[in-house]
């Protein structure tokens, strides 16, 4: 029973997925979208299981002080920090701030005569502001901009990511002077300052470093493995050298023939072999898929006990 029900579910949904490719009817499409939503929910809920698994595996290793247990502490602390900074804490508590607007007590006759108004913005030098579609940088000192009378949108934002822009709609009459102060607040969550800072200064460099290790491993693998033991190995070796020289600018500097040879290797033998492997793999994938969908293969369904 424990194996029969999953087998039946697998066959039913597998056959539906295959049939959906051939049936354009919108009811089938709507049902398919619904199933995809279910799959996405299942996959998301599995991440909770994954988090629990990490704790279950890591915590005993820390408690028993197994080798490299300190790295396990770093792992758990890092995960906790990212979880906490990824939550939108700014949505709790006080409502969003807007810029403060102060108006001068008396109108400016000279401005009024010219039919203009003036908006003064006082913000820090890491804040940019946009008035009526024109942007400028804050300087820490008042910056005066003349505008036409009416409703004017003033938007304040910080140069770096992770801060919420502040927007004020200021209605000014001819001759009126208004002063806008504002300090865009920091936000939390995926777009928040701390999350973005950690992404830019820790995650990105670490990710790039791991990928960069490949350069060193390629060199050591090349030294170890590219030996002309037989004819096939020698051909592979020669092709590798031609490709490396031909694809780099150095190859063109040495000879114009090298890039053409590299392109020929890419277009003819490589593409030919690649297409053959792709076709074989695709046919194999169809056969494997069919045997899983039809229930011929059942070893992935688990035990009966």
């Amino acid at each position, binding site marked *: 029973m424990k194996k029969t029900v999953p087998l039946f579910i697998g066959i039913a949904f597998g056959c539906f997925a295959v049939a959906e490719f051939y049936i354009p009817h919108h009811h089938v499409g709507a049902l398919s979208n619904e199933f995809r939503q279910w799959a*996405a929910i299942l996959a998301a809920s599995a991440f909770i299981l994954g988090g629990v698994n990490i704790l279950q595996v890591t915590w005993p290793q820390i408690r028993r002080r197994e080798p490299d247990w300190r790295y396990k502490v770093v792992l758990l602390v890092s995960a906790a920090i990212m979880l906490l900074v990824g939550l939108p804490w700014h949505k709790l508590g006080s409502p969003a701030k807007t810029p403060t607007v102060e108006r001068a007590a008396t109108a400016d006759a000279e401005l009024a005569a010219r039919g203009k108004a003036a908006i003064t913005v006082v913000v820090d030098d890491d804040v940019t502001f946009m008035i009526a579609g024109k*942007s400028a940088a804050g300087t820490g000192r008042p910056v005066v901009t003349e505008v036409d009378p009416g409703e004017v949108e003033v938007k304040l934002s910080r140069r770096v990511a992770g801060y919420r822009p502040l927007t004020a709609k200021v209605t000014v009459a001819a001759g009126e002077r208004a002063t806008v102060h504002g300090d865009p607040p920091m936000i939390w969550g995926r777009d928040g300052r701390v999350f*973005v800072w950690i992404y830019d200064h820790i995650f990105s460099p670490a*990710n790039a470093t791991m990928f960069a290790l490949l350069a060193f491993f390629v*060199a050591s693998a090349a030294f170890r493995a590219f030996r002309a033991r037989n004819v096939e190995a020698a051909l592979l070796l020669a092709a590798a050298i031609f490709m*490396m020289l031909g*694809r780099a600018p*150095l190859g063109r*500097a040495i000879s114009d023939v090298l890039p053409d040879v590299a392109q020929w290797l890419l277009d003819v033998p490589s593409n030919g072999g690649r297409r053959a492997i792709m076709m074989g793999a695709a046919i194999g994938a169809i056969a494997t898929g069919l045997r899983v969908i039809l229930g011929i293969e059942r070893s992935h369904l688990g035990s009966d006990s």
Partner: protein
Amino acid sequence: MSAEHWSAKLQRFDRRWIFLVMAVAVVVPLFVPLGLPARPDPMTKAAFNAVEALPSCGPDDVPPKCARVFVSIDLDPASTPEIEPFYRAVVLHLKRKNAKLVFATTWYQAPPLVDRYLRETIEAAIAPAGTDGYDGAADRPYRKGIDYVNLGFRDGKGAIIQAFGSDLRGAFDHRADDGTRLDRIAMLDGVNKLSDFDLIVLVSAGNPGAKEYVQYVGTRNKLPMIAACTAVSTTDLAPYYQTGQLIGLVAGMAGSAGYETLVGKPGAGTAGADVLNIGNLVVIAAIVFGNVVFFAGRRYQRRGRTS
């Protein structure tokens, strides 16, 4: 007891020496540039020509006078050294034509990168008038909702790319990344799916990426697409260029450097091309050295057997 042959010692050679040589080969060209010209290959030229063929218009013109281009940025920080130079060059190229740009991504690691790219290259001018070392037309800061739209991130790999091909607005719930309703954005009038764009630019580091676009939507709808990929994916995507399913392919850092040369603004790709040259030479030297050691050892063993 006979002394050990030098080839036998070198067979057990500590590979950290190779790491050290590679490290020197990577670092030195950054400070002492070779200055070799980065000549573009035919696939990169084809990509450049596809963008060059788009119509140019004025800053206040609207489609169809202006080209509408869909840019899918599917990369992570690890692949930025290879394909970010292409992204910057192609965006400069598109901004010179005042093309309207629509951005999206299908990689969950990409949104912070996309936000940074938009701030640095779209909302600011990449090459304003008077830029050193650049003789081409200047570009301008783009206006959100008028010159560009960021649709944001959508998960779903092949399925979501299929949705882009049939119902782009629905795939993003009819809203841009900042919540603006898409039907309020004039530059998107008449755009409902990928085939409504004049060109599709794929900045693709892996899966899902250019291959999925070709397989799920490109071939079916005969979409004009150019792609940039990491060097290791070149062999994967080259067949699609050969058959015309991709009308241009910019492969790795060498391709990015070639595109920068065509656009006329050398950048990180051109600077990295020197590192690529020296790094390739180190790998070739390692291969040659390994074979010398191998053949020397084999000859020594044969002599030892015959004598």
